[in-house]
């Protein structure tokens, strides 16, 4: 049986108060359990998204590097490196936050990173088509990497909140509520005992009074 709360006097008033506290603790426990379940559900969804995003990113990067190697083989590494220096290297990302049940997770909004052949800034005549493929695949991969960064950070934030909420639920379920209930039982038992003591005391007093009256009558 759980420990009882120290320093509570066994009175009916305290018993009533405890009853109210138990009710509130049970309600709070139910609400926190709802939050925990919702958080776990969100967490599992995000984990699934991380996996999907990671697979996509790996696939895109593998394709892109394969095309890059081919382009380097056809055009030479130096030529590819020179071309990479003249192309635009800026990506506009807008980093904001989203609030999921008190957990602040990042939201990264990116403009379309895919560029047209003209926007890439190099000539078509003296470059290999493999370079175009590599550029396209890298652009797609960048989008996926950014998405992956967003969900990866969300997983970490959600995981720590799940742990925190779980701890609070468990504290209520295994410590607070059992302790309150044990204390209520203790007070109820103590009150019953006091009642029995009182009953016996009254009986004794009555017997003493009766014995006194009989003695007086006999005299």
């Amino acid at each position, binding site marked *: 049986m759980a420990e009882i709360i120290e320093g509570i006097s066994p009175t009916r008033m305290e018993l009533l108060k405890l009853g109210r*506290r138990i009710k509130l603790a049970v309600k709070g426990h139910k*609400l*926190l*359990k709802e939050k925990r*379940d919702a958080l776990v*559900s969100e967490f599992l*969804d995000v984990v699934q998204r991380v996996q999907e995003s990671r697979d996509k990113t790996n696939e895109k990067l593998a394709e892109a590097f394969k095309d890059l190697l081919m382009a380097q083989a056809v055009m030479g590494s130096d030529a590819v490196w020179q071309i990479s220096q003249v192309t635009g290297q800026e990506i506009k990302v807008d980093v*904001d936050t*989203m609030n*999921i049940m008190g957990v602040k997770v990042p939201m990264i909004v990116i403009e379309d990173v895919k560029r047209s052949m003209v926007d890439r800034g190099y000539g078509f005549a003296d470059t290999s088509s493999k370079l175009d493929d590599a550029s396209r695949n890298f652009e797609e991969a960048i989008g996926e990497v950014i998405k992956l960064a967003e969900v990866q950070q969300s997983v970490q934030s959600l995981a720590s909140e799940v742990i925190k909420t779980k701890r609070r639920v468990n504290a209520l379920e295994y410590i607070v509520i059992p302790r309150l209930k044990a204390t209520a039982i203790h007070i109820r038992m103590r009150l019953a005992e006091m009642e029995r003591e009182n009953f016996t005391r009254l009986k004794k007093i009555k017997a003493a009074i009766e014995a006194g009256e009989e003695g007086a009558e006999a005299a």
Partner: protein
Amino acid sequence: MDPESRVFAKLVRSLNDHLPVERKTLAELLREEKPRVVCRDGSTHRIRREELETIERITGSKWGKEAERLKLPILIEMAPDYGRSAARIRGRVYCDIVQEILGEERKTADEMVIFRPDIRRLRRELPSATQYAFIISTV
């Protein structure tokens, strides 16, 4: 209010700290360059434009101009009274949106109760345009 109730009220408040101080209308959010609402804990909650456009598309045909007054984010009300992991959606327009997303026709008036798989689907479709609200004693 007795101390226990105060503690409980504080707990409920803290559970709902992520809710917006004031919800914005769909039209307002669509007008903003970065659609976002301010939460009770002072943080901001950004809503993705694509989700707003999805909602606009769903509601536009049926509700017309009235849909612009729709307040967002949509609240998924988690109430233990409905049973574990059941949630309530209130408001006819909101119910229409949820039904459209879940792809099923339900007889509903102004509110509907959805369960965990539906909540997950809804959250997957509209992760930033919906928010959980934890409420007590509804029925």
